């Protein structure tokens, strides 16, 4: 029962956050200097054409009316028409790009989550010894590399000198991402560096805390072999906090995505956001930023629930004997 109550409360918060977020994004783009119509028409703008375009885009209506029209559209899945590329429906290019970004994000997750958890645990168990200082130093070094720095280094190694991986991620026409998985490797690796450093350090400290806890000492003094104690007693409690950390870091991951997709020209949501901001294509900016926020909020929610479900102290709150 307690778990369900917590679940519905968090769900409520999530929707509230999303609603407020959508309004803030709408507001943020509203306060943009410069007139939207002027941006679209560019150098060919004449007073009459500006008026006509503003009318067509309904820019003269009060802000709240426009917000609810836009929000209504979003809920119905219609992301509206791009200001910049007139006549082009945003959803036509948006979802394809989102698909690519999610695959890239998942590949990055597949690379760094198992690696950082494994090395975090090993460093924690062998705290103070040589392996620990090697892993910690490596973790610290990689954490300090912004995505584009590690990307540039990877390019110079793999593309410029070894020439085995493409320097830029372009999907030939008529093919899809699954036929060109090679373009995923370098972008995913660049993100993996930063995230690995961060998560492995967290996992190491949580592992050390658990190894020094009373119940691990009690288990050892019950005569249980050290390996068994680590696997059975320590690991489960040590991995729990990492779930929230990975969930909380999705925001960082998406920040990284933007940098990496720009560096490698990867046709994903990040580079789309970048070109939207560059061309001030307002509906596209709103759609991209809202989607990034949605993914972030949903992932935090999922990791919260996963943490609550796996942690018996929260799942079985009631039933005090």
């Amino acid at each position, binding site marked *: 029962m307690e778990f369900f109550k917590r679940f519905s409360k968090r769900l409520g*918060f999530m929707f*509230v*956050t999303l609603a*407020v*977020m959508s309004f*803030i*994004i709408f507001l*943020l*783009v509203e*306060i*943009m*200097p410069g007139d939207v119509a002027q941006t679209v028409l560019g150098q060919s703008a004449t007073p009459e054409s500006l008026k006509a375009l503003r009318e067509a885009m309904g820019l003269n209506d009060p802000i709240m009316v426009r917000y609810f029209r836009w929000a209504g559209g979003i809920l119905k899945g219609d992301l509206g028409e791009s200001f910049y590329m007139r006549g082009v429906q945003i959803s036509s290019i948006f979802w394809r790009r989102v698909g690519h970004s999610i695959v890239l994000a998942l590949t990055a997750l597949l690379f760094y989550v198992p690696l950082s958890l494994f090395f975090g645990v090993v460093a924690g168990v062998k705290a103070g010894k040589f392996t620990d*200082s090697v892993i910690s*130093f490596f973790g*610290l*070094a990689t*954490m*300090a*590399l*912004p*995505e*584009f*720095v590690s990307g*540039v*280094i990877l*390019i*110079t190694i793999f593309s*410029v000198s070894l020439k085995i991986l493409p320097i830029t991620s372009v999907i030939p026409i008529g093919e899809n991402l699954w036929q060109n998985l090679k373009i995923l490797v370098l972008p995913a690796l660049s993100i993996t560096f930063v995230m690995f450093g961060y998560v492995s350090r967290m996992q190491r400290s949580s592992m050390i805390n658990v190894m020094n806890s009373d119940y691990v000492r009690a288990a050892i003094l019950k005569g249980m072999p050290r390996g068994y104690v680590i696997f059975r007693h320590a690991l489960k409690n040590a991995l729990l906090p990492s779930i929230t950390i990975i969930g909380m870091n999705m*925001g*960082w991951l*998406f*920040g*990284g995505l*933007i*940098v990496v997709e*720009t*560096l490698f020209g990867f046709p994903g949501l990040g580079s789309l*956001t*970048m070109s939207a*901001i*560059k061309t*001030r294509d307002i509906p596209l*900016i709103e759609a991209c*930023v809202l989607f*990034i*926020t949605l993914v*972030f*909020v949903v992932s935090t929610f999922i990791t919260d629930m996963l943490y609550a479900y796996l942690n018996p102290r929260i799942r079985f709150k009631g039933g005090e004997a």
Partner: protein
Amino acid sequence: MKNFLLLLKQNPRAILGLSILLLWILLALLGPSLLPYSFSQMDMDNQISRPGLNGHLLGTDALGRDILTRIVYGSRSILTIALMTSLFSSLAGILIGFTAGYFGGFWDTLFLRIMDIVMAIPPLVLSMVVLGILGDSTIASLTIIVSIAYTPATARVARGALLSCKGSEYVDAARIRGESDFYIMFVEILPNTLGPIIVEITARFAYSIMMIASLGFLGVGLQPPTPDWGMMVIENKSIIREAPWAVLYPSLAIASLVIAISLFSDFISKVMIHEK
């Protein structure tokens, strides 16, 4: 302070971090006057020349400008912005975190919801949108934007530190002496929460350098010709085949500075724990 030096001696990694950091600070302060070239001086005779050739230790970029000078100048702007950012976001963080944590109830939940919302947008995206809109990013606008992006994180740490002290008896003792809330927060509790807050400030320092460099890379960094490490990487990316050093050295500069600070902040957190 005594055991600070003592601990330092036993921790080679911290010494490494501290020395690199001091080197960069020294370079930022004295560097420009020592170097023969100015950061925008164009030596047209040897554009894209290899490192070490004709007087350019780290070679030159496409416009024949000395890369070493530009990196040294770049360190000056990135260090100032990062320093100011971590200070502003920490001050704001402490103020917000403390008030929310101390008064609790409505304010606390309001604060948590706002923090959720502000942190919902990844800091980089938030800054990108705002800077993309403002157009020209100066040192001031970059500092403000990055500080806003990082205040939630510091506020959360400050709030956590306060909550751990708020329950202890010396706060109750102060209360029944009739002390004002302000006195309790900033005279009684603040000195005991300096540990985690200082650790947070140094960590924030490292992260803001990474973020400023990333913003530069995305093209919303400082207006040229003032050198900005992130911008240097993207400017020279198009000649990465001919002049890999023009891209590599700024990247290594960023990496070295951030690693140095992370090593040092790692050490600071050990000292703080030892202090308790």
